[in-house]
């Protein structure tokens, strides 16, 4: 299967017949679901490393590959130094990796996540005050990023400094949920995020500000 520059939130993964395999390419990564004796074998390779899973799946159901938002709040580390003088605003696009998730759909009920293929560029951290969060790095694109087929979501951000000092944040806090993800321009995007620095901390504002605890649908 050829690499497609476009990406959609859900990609069906038909169960192969015995001896056959189903291949799905996502950017530089590839997923191969193979029917073997006694079950199914799943191979996920990102070009540098590979993970292998053995799956037991019934015949009455369907498998799909979904791209989910990171579970925990994000700290996006900009690859460029951001510096905002007081009352200044900076806008751009960030790219955040998504989590490819194999979801099993049985009957009419809600599906269940079988395997989460955590991307390597999404690192998790935890402390007693903030709890868990995930960290990733991204450039602040001034234009809508070119579609690459990678499992990433484009996040438009507005950053405004209402403090009295120059703001040079070490990271931009974001929180995404699966319900926020939309398919636009053959890419996955979310509505713009507005971050206002009030002198002490970042305050998300606007309609997309609410941090939802709904999590995954």
């Amino acid at each position, binding site marked *: 299967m050829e690499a497609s520059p476009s990406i959609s939130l859900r990609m069906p993964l038909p169960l192969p017949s015995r001896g056959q395999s189903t291949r799905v390419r996502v950017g530089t990564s590839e997923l191969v679901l193979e029917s073997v004796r006694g079950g199914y074998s799943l191979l996920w390779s990102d070009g540098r490393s590979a993970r292998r899973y053995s799956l037991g799946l019934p015949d009455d159901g369907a498998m799909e590959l979904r791209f989910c938002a990171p*579970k*925990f*709040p994000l700290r996006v580390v900009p690859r460029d130094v951001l510096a905002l003088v007081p*009352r200044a*605003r900076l*806008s751009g*696009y960030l790219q955040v990796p998504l989590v490819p998730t194999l979801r099993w759909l049985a009957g009419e009920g809600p599906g269940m996540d079988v395997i989460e293929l955590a*991307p*390597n*560029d999404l*690192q*998790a*951290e*935890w402390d007693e*005050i*903030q*709890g*868990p*969060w995930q960290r990733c790095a991204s450039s602040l694109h001034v*234009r*809508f990023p070119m579609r690459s087929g990678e499992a990433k979501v484009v996040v*438009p951000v*507005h950053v*405004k400094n*209402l*403090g009295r*000092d*120059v*703001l*040079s*944040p*070490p990271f*931009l*806090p974001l929180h995404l949920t699966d319900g*926020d993800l*939309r398919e*636009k*321009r053959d890419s996955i*995007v979310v*509505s*713009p995020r*507005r971050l*206002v620095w*009030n*002198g*002490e*901390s*970042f*305050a*998300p*504002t*606007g*309609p*997309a*500000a*609410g*941090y*939802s*605890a*709904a999590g995954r649908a």
Partner: protein
Amino acid sequence: MGCVRRGLLAALVAVAACSPSSSELGEVAAELRALRLQARSASPPDAGAPQVAEALSPLRTALDGLLATQRDLQAQQVELAREMHRWTQLAAQPANAARSEEGLALAKRLQELEQKMAQQETRHREVETLLRGALDRTSERLESFLLQLQSLPRPTPAGDNASPASLATPPAAGASEPKQGTVDTGSGARAGGAGSRPGLSAPVGWWILLLGSVLVGGHLCVRAWRGRGAHAVPGRDAAGDAQQAHGAAPQAVPAPAPQSAEEIWAAAALLGEAVDRLRRGKDAVPNAPRPPRQPPGDLDFAGLDAGLDDRDLFVVEGLDDPGVTADAVEPVPAARPVLVPTPEAPPVAPAAAAPTSREAVAMPRMVASVLPRRAPAQLSFRLRPRDPAHACSALLKILREDPRVLQRPEPRVQGTGPEVVCQFAVLPGLPAGECSVLEQRLRDSVG
């Protein structure tokens, strides 16, 4: 005989007197031996550096002379290289001059060609004007001729019912149809009158057909000519089309002129539509309903949003229209909790004066109140690697690259003698199978 004997004896005596004695030879040999012994017994330091230097002084002089010669040669080579460079420049200058002459000649040639093109263009315009005038005059004459025909008495009334198409014989049917279509607005009766004369119908009809074909052919020639020159003066072509579509005689203009006019009108309509859209968009901006503000109790940061313009959105499809706000694409989750800052929540971050500090950019309080703050699962186990010295770095590399491992608290790998202790935390909710596979991967890496 006696004399011979005496002579031989005298010769022997003389030879014996002239040959060196053995004692002298021995003395020389002894002297040589003594010198050799003296030379052997003399120690190397005794030879002395000054003596060596003195012995080598002629060689040094020769070397100095050689070096001086070499320097002279080098200087001469440099001078020669400079001279060669000068000569090269001198040799290249004529070539450049030739090129410049070539360039001048080409420029002249280009100017000549441009002048020729301009002359041809002027000639084309003149010919076009002549043809247009001829066509206009021909159409006027044809019209007057038709008027004269109309003024003649009609021999049979049945001729009124004769269709104009009946005049147009099958070979000229294609040419007569558009003419009839254009004539229909103003001179339908004339056309009917032209075809209603049986006595004159045959020659007059043939004359009309001949004139019509000439007109159509001339017009097609003009069109083809102007089509060739369209790249040079496109605006003039369009203007000519419009002028011909509106000002030329309707009888003489077949289908192509209205077609070009239709294109122009279609383009104008599209342009007008775009301008209208722009105007509507501008008018709609001030009247566009502002997105609803967050209720004051919903977020404490509503006041901070005062400086933000919600309509200033990004170039995301669906958001480009100024009338569309973020609400249009913002999904409404089914069960979004009301995120009220909880007073019992622990302080998120110290009130940092310096915004660049890491802790100052803390998550809002509601995030901390919503997210679980349970300590993540910790994994700790001991390994007995083959090479404890390199095992720690290898294990740490794996732990830092694996996305399932939390980077804070930082994973620890401590080597205690032959054993290595690994301690790290994994993602909350990570399945036990993943934990086990991760541990086994670490064991295999140092096994």
